[in-house]
């Protein structure tokens, strides 16, 4: 195909090759969209549809319930418990996201710009802990933070405290630490591939134009790394908001999140429509938060 292009003079390509080129492009586009379209239109739309449908039904023990009703959605929306738990989940996840992304950024920066031939080794070292099962890592944190755990033993050995601290486990802070640890790779990798894709001579160019090193970073590199920051924040924030496993294992009663509530509706309370309604409300709330945050960050980065 490319050979025939080379043979035809440039000024004639438009008129001679446009129709076949356009139809080839259409075939390409169709094939490109096919796998994604297949998965999304069958499975994802079905899941979303079922969720919405369930939330509008009355609970009678059947999967799909009986009769349509807005009661579930209305009570989920107006219940003060929903607001309390959603707010707590969003705030906790926001703290986790902030901590994870901020802590991960220097590491990603180092990997992209300074690591040189150690890059692959370091990338491997950063991702290796995540090949063990997540549940094992949570248990490992329990060992570290337990009453007779590593941290308490170390602090007592150093003489910092006389008796073991009892408040390390089963608090919201535990959840933050555990989640920040569990999602570290999810922040480092997207940040890294974004920074790594930037042209290498940015700093030189900025320096040539008279910027000091820190100015080069804050006014050139940082704004350009915003897509990476946003994608890292997204893949950390959204899953942690809905997580109920970590709070169940290390969180204690003050860390009950929206995922816990939804799971309880489906399991313990045997009320699928109520659970579906709660899930719909929380989905919308989270989506609003994500869109708002993205808008704010993008506006801030284009202003600087």
């Amino acid at each position: 195909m490319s050979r025939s292009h080379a043979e035809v003079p440039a000024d004639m390509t438009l008129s001679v090759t446009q129709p076949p080129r356009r139809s080839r492009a259409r075939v390409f586009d169709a094939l490109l969209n096919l796998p994604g379209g297949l998965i999304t239109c069958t499975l994802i739309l079905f899941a979303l549809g079922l969720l919405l449908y369930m939330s509008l039904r009355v609970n009678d023990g059947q999967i799909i319930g009986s009769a349509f009703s807005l009661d579930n959605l209305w009570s989920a929306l107006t219940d003060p418990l929903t607001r309390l738990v959603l707010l707590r989940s969003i705030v906790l996840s926001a703290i986790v996201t902030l901590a994870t992304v901020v802590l991960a950024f220097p590491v990603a920066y180092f990997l992209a710009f300074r690591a040189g031939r150690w890059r692959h080794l370091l990338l491997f070292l950063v991702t290796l802990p995540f090949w063990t099962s997540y549940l094992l890592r949570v248990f490992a944190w329990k060992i570290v933070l337990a009453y007779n755990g590593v941290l308490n033993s170390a602090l007592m050995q150093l003489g910092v405290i006389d008796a073991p601290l009892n408040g390390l486990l089963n608090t919201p802070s535990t959840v933050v630490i555990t989640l920040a640890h569990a999602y570290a790779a999810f922040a480092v990798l997207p940040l890294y591939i974004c920074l790594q894709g930037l042209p290498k001579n940015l700093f030189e160019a900025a320096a040539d134009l008279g910027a000091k090193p820190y100015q080069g970073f804050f006014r050139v590199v940082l704004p350009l790394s915003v897509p990476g920051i946003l994608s890292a924040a997204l893949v950390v924030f959204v899953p942690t908001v809905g997580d109920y496993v970590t709070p169940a294992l290390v969180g204690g009663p003050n860390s009950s999140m929206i995922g816990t509530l939804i799971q309880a509706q489906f399991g313990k309370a045997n009320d699928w429509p109520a659970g579906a309604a709660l899930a719909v409300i929380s989905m919308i709330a989270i989506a609003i938060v994500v869109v708002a945050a993205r808008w704010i960050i993008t506006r801030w980065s284009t202003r600087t």
Partner: protein
Amino acid sequence: MKIRMTDSRAWVLGLSAFALGATLLQQGAQAADSGKLTYFTWSGYELPQFHGDFEKAHAGQVDISVFGDDDDALSKARAGFHPDLAHPCYDKLDRWKQAGLIQPLDPKRLKNWDQIFPVLQKLPGIVDADGKVWMVPWDWGNTSILYRTDLVKNPEATWKMFFDPASPYAGKMATIDAVHDTPLVAALLAGVDPFKKMDDKQLEKVGAMLRQQRPLMSSYTTDMTSVEQSLASGELVAAMAWNASATALKKQNVPVAFMKPKEGMLTWVCGMVMLKDAKHVDLAYDFINARMNPESGASLINEYGYGSASEAAFKQVPAAKLEELSLPNDPETMLRDTVLTKPIPSNDELAKLFERVKAGG
């Protein structure tokens, strides 16, 4: 650059081809064996020693699916998972019936039905008016407060320990995160009968009791692994636990005692049910009969320290061992002093209330 790209791409493609192939092969292998019995049970109960005779008669003809929580199991069954047999607990039996998921069994085909303790056979709902059996009891156990005898000096034997606002052990106690445990005890202490339908006022009383408990608890959990370790280390001084945990900790020389509260310990019973659209009914009966063998029950007692529903199984375990496990060999007498976890009519409302209180609302 070109070769490196090909290397990595080759790796990714190779790995995914291998993975795809392996999955498909496994799927093919499974599809070819669809004549197998499917049994849905608690994790830990799938060991072949519990159905030894079935293995001898029909080797490899059973596929076992496990769950960690029978609420999750019900959700999965409602969503369309169709095993032949399942192993929920007695207090959830009504839910399975109401969801239209199970069918009754013919007692004439149950070989060792008579070896089951009569008190368990006569539990309401187990056998219906026609004499058909809805659930074959298989195991039972006790739930109570497990406490450190050296850290809690001579406590009064009552569940109120977990609800006392002036308790010196606030933040050093844990309770089980299940509706048929913690809210049930709260209802008993609030003077509400948990085994009758509750009206709003009664629910409020239970809620008040649960809210009174909340500041005292360091966690609501079903993770017995961590509970045992916390008791061993002293992080917790008391926790709601099952009798098997008591035995395990005593074996590790941790000074603990399993309380006998005056309101009564909680006794749970679990058993096997047959799903309505079971495809391998004959195999299912053989399987149930194999599990109802005395050897199987004795194995349960020795392995996990829980009670078997089979009287004959108890006769196979020496009295010294039972003493060590602090397992009474006569559930009839025991049930006079304990609270049997029967179906709770207001289970769903209690569950929502419990979640609300736990979340701080």
